[in-house]
């Protein structure tokens, strides 16, 4: 068996809605990935430190609080500081279309909005992580 892709599913910010994060974590698991799940209300510092220690290939951020324009760029900034920009970052949750170009400019690879199929998500991860 090939080496499993390691993914961190993280929930930055203060909202308590983790259903989406759990659904995607489970889908990644069933796709043969090792999913590190850290629970609710994580600071960007906690997320980046976890990603580094767990040596993940990709971080999946789930956010429903509306603070993505602040938190996502902060996470990218910290990854850069730690020389860990080889870790890919994707985001999901309630994110207005008009915010997406800005987030991508910050280095977020893709944003998945409500209604995205988990199959598409898994396919995207597989395509962007070299194993």
């Amino acid at each position, binding site marked *: *068996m090939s*080496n*499993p892709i*390691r993914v961190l599913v993280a929930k930055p910010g203060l909202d308590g809605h983790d259903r989406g994060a759990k659904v995607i*974590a*489970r889908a*990644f*698991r*069933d*796709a*043969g*990935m*090792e*999913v*590190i*799940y*850290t*629970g609710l209300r*994580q*600071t960007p*510092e*906690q997320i980046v*430190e*976890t990603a*580094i*220690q*767990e*040596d993940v290939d990709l971080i999946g951020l789930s956010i429903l609080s509306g603070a993505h324009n602040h938190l996502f760029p902060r996470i990218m900034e910290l990854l850069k500081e*730690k*020389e*860990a920009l080889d870790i890919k970052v994707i985001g999901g949750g309630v994110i207005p279309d008009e915010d997406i170009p800005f987030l991508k400019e910050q280095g977020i690879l893709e944003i998945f909005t409500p209604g995205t199929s988990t199959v598409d998500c898994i396919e995207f991860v597989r395509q962007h992580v070299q194993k």
Partner: protein
Amino acid sequence: MFRNRLSEYELDLLQGLRQRKKRHLAKAITYVENNFLTSRPFMGELHQCIPPGKSDVIGITGPPGAGKSTLTGKLIQHYRQLGKEVGVILIDPTSPFSGGAILGDRIRMSESFTDTGVFIRSMGSRGRLGGLSAATQDAIKLMDAYGFDVILVETVGIGQAETEIVETADITVVVSVPGLGDDIQIIKAGIMEIGDLFVVNKADKEGAERVVTEINMMLDLAPKGSLRPPVIKTVSTKGTGIDLLAEALHRVKEQSMMSGKWKKNREERLWKELESNVSAQWGKILRESSLYANREMLLQLLSEGKTNAYSEAVSILNELRLPSDYGLKKRSFGMLQKIDHLGIAVKDLAQAVKFYHEVLGLELKGTEVVEEQVVTVAMLQIGESKIELLEPTSEESPIAKTIEKRGEGIAHVAFQVDNIEETLAQLKAGGARLIDETPRIGAGGAKIAFVHPKSTYGVLVELCEKH
């Protein structure tokens, strides 16, 4: 000794580890986890650069939901308050179906995520069933080399028999909770035997006191002179009892060091490590042998009953020039399978059949005239073999000559073979004198050939291949 064999990537990992870079520690763990065999020289070199054995390794085990992660989280904080640096390995089960895993133990220790004196790594069990993963031992080594004072290893949530942790940790903590069953569960063999220290967590729940009593009663039955493991009550979510646990851990360590158990444990660990390295290499040699290359063919032969697992095992060991202790001969296709029949020359077939069939009670399979051999034969079944009675039909028959020369009696021994041409070739190569260089047709339409008694110590040997 290994240095010149290391890749640039491995050398970079080593250097990073020496400089205590966490990114390098993390990458090194991934590297050994994904490349167990090829990373052996790297691990060897690591040993030489940074001799291990400085960290205390504490194993935390117990059933799912006992509160192991929360307890681990509290222990991290305790050791941090003492100024110690802590490495943590958390193992969760890998799905045997998808190969995926949810590694969620971290949730209970998020206070320590950004603490620079703490490094937490989650690992999937990846097919191992003993409560750890194959690379756990290596991950501990790497953390040890990095220089943590304490390494906490939390196993997967276990049942009754996953005791691998005891071969890995200096001290094993078994976490129990109220409500899991009666005292019979506690005196059973398995995990209840491996604790250097027992924790009854969720001690604010009903029944906690009973669990403590039952564990103590079990410990009372231990042989005199062995160290008695402490039993500590905790409520890990509230932090209650953590100081008592830490104190007990300290005491257990001191006692273990005094009694020599600590050292003995570590020696056992080194030995296990050596064994597992050897068996990993050995597994690789085996996977690269003809055993796996011929898998399809062997499976077919096995399922058709033409060979069996024991002779194949011997055969593969022979191929690898290793002795086997089965005491069987190497498989060889086309060689003798069993005694098919014994040929007995008789003057009067009817009388002989009467004796063998009616007096000895052998089942008569049939009689026939075999033109080519100038005989009439009767076949009688005896177990898996047969008795073949032969009466010459003319003076010219070879059987008639046998009787004339030696009287009635055993005329030949017939061996059944898989492939008569191959066996003839092998016999010829082995220097046997063949009467028939190529097979002819005998009784029942079988392919037969004779080997001269001069090569077979006085017995005419017949080979027969049946379809």
